[in-house]
């Protein structure tokens, strides 16, 4: 059976073969991703529930595990309402505009050594460019809805995203300087050695700023003034229902996972194992234990989960920033710190400071 499939596949022309392979890879990334989103929402409700001494969802399926499935089904069967006086095309197209970039970025994420859909040189730039397009979905949604709350939400987010993108970009410049490459795989390889070789240590301020800016970019608490349910109802997506809303929701969570995985790749050594350089080399040769302790995709997923947990933790802990405070933090605190730290990184590289930049 399997050989038969392969023989059919090999009879296709070369171009088609590559296309099919790429499509398969895309599916292999997207399906787990969407499942992750589903269970991230579940985890969110559970984690925040426990933090607030509640139980969270526990009725649908064993221990509430089928809750996200139920939510999806509900959203799918709801009617999409298009408000009167709204701009119909833009109203429909804006969820697409917000999810497409969120998905497109995954093309360059390295899950393991060599395990990447598109191993391009300018990977980091690509990430920055594509994520910056995501804001259009939100802004257009806010404008096309023909609703005051939605427009206010869009206005807020427009300024916020542009402000934090600069800090984020500068943080990435630090990474690029440290690694000397824009290729995400090379960035991870540049961190190999031990847990102290990872860039979180020399780029610590940039690491923190990157992650906090990432939280702001994805509109999560405490930077979620664009939604701000207590002030502007639900912000830009107040008029959306059913699948159209679900797509926004999906995009937001995919972006969260993306920020988490990028933070792990750039500052916490991606797929590298924290035991590397600490345990003796021979440990990694032990059959199963070696696999677990050695580098691999599981470490990347673990690190990503940690950041995702932080997202939820923040949401349960911090009160929402006021708008002027957000702007102040972005422009007057983060950007100056990143610029100063870039100078420091430059000096560190120039001084060939070990263990990161010694001549070896």
């Amino acid at each position, binding site marked *: 059976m399997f050989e038969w499939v392969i023989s059919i596949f090999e009879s296709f022309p070369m171009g088609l073969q590559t296309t099919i392979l790429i499509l398969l890879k895309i599916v292999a990334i997207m399906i787990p991703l969407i499942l992750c989103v589903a269970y991230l929402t579940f985890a969110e409700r559970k984690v925040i529930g426990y933090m607030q001494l509640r139980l969270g969802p526990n009725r649908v399926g064993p221990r509430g595990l089928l809750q996200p499935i139920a939510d999806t089904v509900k959203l799918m069967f709801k009617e999409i309402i298009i408000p009167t006086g709204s701009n119909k095309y833009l109203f429909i197209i804006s969820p697409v505009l917000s999810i497409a970039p969120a998905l497109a970025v995954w093309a360059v994420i390295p899950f393991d050594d060599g395990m990447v859909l598109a191993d391009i040189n300018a990977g980091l*730039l690509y990430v920055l*460019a*594509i994520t910056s397009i995501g804001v259009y979905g939100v*802004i257009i949604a806010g404008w096309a809805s023909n609703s005051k709350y939605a427009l206010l939400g*869009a206005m807020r987010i*427009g300024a916020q995203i542009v402000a934090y993108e600069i800090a984020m970009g500068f943080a990435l410049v630090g990474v690029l300087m440290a690694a000397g490459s*824009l290729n995400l795989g090379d960035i991870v390889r540049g961190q190999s050695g031990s847990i102290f070789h990872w860039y979180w240590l020399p780029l610590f301020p940039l690491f923190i700023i990157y992650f906090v800016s990432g939280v702001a970019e994805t509109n999560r608490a405490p930077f979620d003034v664009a939604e701000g349910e207590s002030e502007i109802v639900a912000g830009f997506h107040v008029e959306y229902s059913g699948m159209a809303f679900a797509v926004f929701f999906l995009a937001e969570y995919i972006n969260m996972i993306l920020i988490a995985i990028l933070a792990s790749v750039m500052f916490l050594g991606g797929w590298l194992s924290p035991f590397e350089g600490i345990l003796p080399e021979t440990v990694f040769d032990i059959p199963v234990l070696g696999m677990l302790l050695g580098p691999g995709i599981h470490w990347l997923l673990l690190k990503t989960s940690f950041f995702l947990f932080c997202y939820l933790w923040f949401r349960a802990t911090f009160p929402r920033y006021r708008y002027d405070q957000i702007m102040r933090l972005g422009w007057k605190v983060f950007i100056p710190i990143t610029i100063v730290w870039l100078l420091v990184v430059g000096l560190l590289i120039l001084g060939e400071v070990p263990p990161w930049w010694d001549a070896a």
Partner: protein
Amino acid sequence: MGVEKIIFYIVALIMVSSATMVITVRNPIQAALFLVLTFFASAIIWMLLEAEFLAIVLVLVYVGAVMVLFLFVVMMLDINVDRLREGFTRYLPIGVVVAVAMVGMLITVVGSDNFGLDKIAEPERHLADYNNTKALGSELYTKYVYPFEIAAVILLVAIVAAIALTMRRRDNTKYQKPEDQISVKREDRVRMVNMPTEKKK
């Protein structure tokens, strides 16, 4: 016809038609969005020319930041499109004349007479590991370092000018000083008063 050529023609068609839409649609927001599409299409064309750095930076800077702010402003303005269009027919003839002249000149200038393949050789294709970003960076920071620095100064002037022209400090506005708020001590807010207890009579 190779795949690249097909992609080129499709993208070029998108680019030209969306550029036309920018100046013909009635709604300023839609015009801005078509402009975004135009930028995006031109980024793809750059990508076809193996200039991936420029393509990505075009998306990053123009699509991701400049046009967002542009939309931001356009959304907040109440532009009366009909008034903008007054006199359109009146100026149409002269506009057409200028446009025709410009197109004619463009054709004479960049037509195949001057820039055909026989005049300028096809640039050589680079291998897959060719790093456009690095090549551009080393040119910019060595050969063109002086113009590059001046360009940076121009941006600095733009910042200074923008702030000088827009920042207003009105006397009656109340500003928050977070550092004061944070460093406030109990003594600044609460005054402990020692009062003699009331005596029962």
